[in-house]
């Protein structure tokens, strides 16, 4: 694993170099009609707006490898990490790469949060949605020795004494928006304390300096000790957490299924999008990939581009409502 991932990195780097050279040579000529005949004509660059090693990065590399192994696309796919600026760096790289389908982005709904917060100079109009390849949902937890055993008890307490409990969130990040959507829906109010990483949230809650925090289901399962989950934000219960109810079950219309979202520039030709969709749909149905997803509290599913875009649009409106309350 250790050295092979190093060589994978080097290989990715070389592929990017080769890609750069190809771009310089072909560049502006390779548009329109030429593409319609055959796609892809050169290696496909996947931009991941995060540092290497996170979930989005790992999923992109897994699927790219699977597609390459099986020859579902005639050219290799190379992952490039472009962290920073709430995704602005990645979007800039995508724009520079051209819109012939050879430069795509693998992101998740943090993109919508950046749009709702007005960070960066991009909106949904900049993208064509290729589709979702599965995703994962978070849980809301309290300390294991907390007086609350169910979500109803927690809400009742917060309604009686508003702002009496401290919620660890990063303002303008997923935990904040998901918590706020639930709070708006259920009609309670918590007090926030800034905690921008999962490790920070864990430290605050275990140390008794915060009462509630949101974790990805996989983060919760990895820790488990000292925590008690109250509510799950998926549409259906997670098999790994059979006793944790979903928000929808409890009568709150809130769900957050943070999808693995594949995006291309808005003017990408449909033929290229369809070729990518075909490959990704096969990859997400592959038994090995399915096994990895279910083993990491992710749900493997395929949502085609337009349907994914409609879902994102709806989610964005909900997020904008929350963003309006903090600006």
């Amino acid at each position, binding site marked *: *694993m*250790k*050295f092979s*991932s*190093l060589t*994978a*990195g*080097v290989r990715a780097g070389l592929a*990017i170099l080769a890609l750069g050279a190809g771009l310089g040579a072909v560049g502006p000529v390779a548009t329109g009609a030429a593409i319609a005949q055959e796609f892809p004509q050169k290696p496909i660059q996947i931009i991941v707006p995060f*540092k*290497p*090693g*996170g979930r989005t990065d790992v999923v992109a590399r897994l699927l790219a490898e699977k597609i390459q192994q099986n020859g579902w696309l005639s050219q290799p796919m190379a992952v*490039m*990490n*472009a*962290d*920073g*600026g*709430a995704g*602005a*760096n990645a*979007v*800039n*790289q995508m724009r520079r790469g051209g819109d012939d389908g050879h430069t795509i982005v693998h992101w998740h709904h943090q993109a919508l949060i950046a749009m709702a*917060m007005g*960070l*960066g*100079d991009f909106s949904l109009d900049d993208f064509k949605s290729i589709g979702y390849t599965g995703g994962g949902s978070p849980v809301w937890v309290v300390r294991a020795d907390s007086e609350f055993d169910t979500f109803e008890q927690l809400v009742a307490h917060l309604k009686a004494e508003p702002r009496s409990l*401290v919620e660890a969130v*990063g*303002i*303008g*990040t997923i935990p*904040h928006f998901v918590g706020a959507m639930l709070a708006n829906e259920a009609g309670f109010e918590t*007090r*926030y*304390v*800034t*905690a*921008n*990483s999962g*490790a*920070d949230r*864990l*430290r*605050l809650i*275990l*140390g*008794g*300096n915060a009462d509630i925090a949101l974790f990805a289901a996989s983060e919760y399962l*990895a*820790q488990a*000790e000292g925590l008690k989950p109250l509510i799950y934000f998926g549409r259906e219960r997670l098999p790994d957490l059979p006793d944790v109810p979903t928000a929808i079950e409890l009568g709150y219309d809130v769900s957050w299924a943070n999808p693995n979202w594949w995006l291309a520039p808005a003017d990408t030709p449909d033929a290229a999008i369809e070729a990518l969709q075909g490959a990704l749909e096969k990859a997400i149905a592959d038994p090995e990939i399915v096994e990895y997803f279910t083993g990491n509290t992710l749900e493997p599913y395929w949502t085609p581009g337009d349907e994914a875009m409609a879902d994102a649009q709806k989610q964005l409106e909900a997020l904008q409502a929350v963003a309006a309350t*903090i*600006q």
Partner: protein
Amino acid sequence: MLDAFAALMDWHNLVLLLVGTGLGIVIGAIPGLTASMLIALTLPLTFHMDPVNAVTLLIGEYVGGISGGLITAILLRMPGTPASIVTTFDGYPMAQSNRAERALALGIMASVVGGIISWGFLAGMSPALARFALKFGPWEYFTLVLMALVMLAVLAQGSLVKGLLAAALGMAFALPGIDSSIGQARLTFGSSAMLSGFGLLPVLIGAFAISQVLRDAAQPISNKKIEIPKRRLPVHLSDARTHGPNMVRSSLIGTWIGLLPGIGGNIAALVSYSTAKQLSKEPDRFGTGHEPGVVAGESANNAAIGGALIPLITMGIPGSVTEAILIGALTIHNLQPGPLLFQNAPEIAYGIIAAYLLANLFMLIMMWGAVRYIAQLVRLPRAGLLSVILVFCVVGSYAVNSSFVDVWVMIAFGVIGLGLEAARVPLGPFVIGFVLSPIAEEQLRASLMLSDGNALEIFQRPYALLFLALAVLTVAWPAILQRIARRRRVST
């Protein structure tokens, strides 16, 4: 802990530790090139490594980098790293009176003993301290970071005002980007490239590597001839009796000084040197090639590393500039040093501890066996070396986010670093201010969010008050000393 040692026995880890320690020794031996620079430059190479591998490599570089400095300190009176300044006091006179081998032997032995003693504290204290630090909330973290920041700025070489000025400048450069407490863009002037602020790595590489390369390039090449030691390195059984107490005492001093945020190996070495001198029956012989002088300095500067690693892995507070870079390295690998590191990533927390011990042993073997070859490396053509470093700087900065903006940032900070050094403003506090102020800001604002904006709540937090008092005392200490001195003068 045993698991961590077992994991280290994996050949990848051993090779990386060996490479790291060896590189560290060579870079440490070459005057002008420091461990901080080496770590900042190799950091991008670790992106695609497993985090344990990455950490092993960097720890090796850290230990090797501090230890290698003694070679040139003894042979050339040019300390390879600032931590070895004290070693020149007695090491160089010894070399001149034909006792170079003896000085090297004692220096190496003392380094290893210092490393092992402080390792004992690192391994023994860290898990308990981490459990204790888990109770710390935002107020405690804010005051702790503030204390570290103030100590680093005040105790840096040079004047108090310039140290504070440098820290303030570093803090100012940390402001642009997304304000982490409200999620809004701040001081970006509408540029999306500025949304992520100035990257840690480009700033570090610029400030430490680029500015050093520029400075070295402007310097005439020294023609000082190096005497390569030819004979075997002599140690005797009786050394344990004659130098043992000194080694142990200096190692303890080094560990405890290293534990304090902001004071690194050079201060530790100075303090234990003067302690050894004061306790000595023949203080006049210090500075003329006296063996205890070499022993005191070299045990303390290595022990300071182990001491400084304690707050790093238990609380995420860097004890020195090099450690600030190590924290950056861990965060790049999505690991957060702090009280939960032992729970969430025990392989990393114990891996650091295990790697630290092994790096000291590797250092002993390599220095002992290869000291004469390492000494020859100092004669490498400077021009070639600097060009290679420059290439690594550019590649390293670009590789972080595949963004050329970072390369420009790196060059800009190289020039800023050069300017600051020319104005005798120390670079250490500048970088520490840059690294620590976002943490301090986030924690302060989190505290105020918790208390609904009531800053007086700090009075209900005894530890936070203690840290704050220490920070205030650090700044006020010189003034208090002056006042006491004046009062004494008046009364006599």
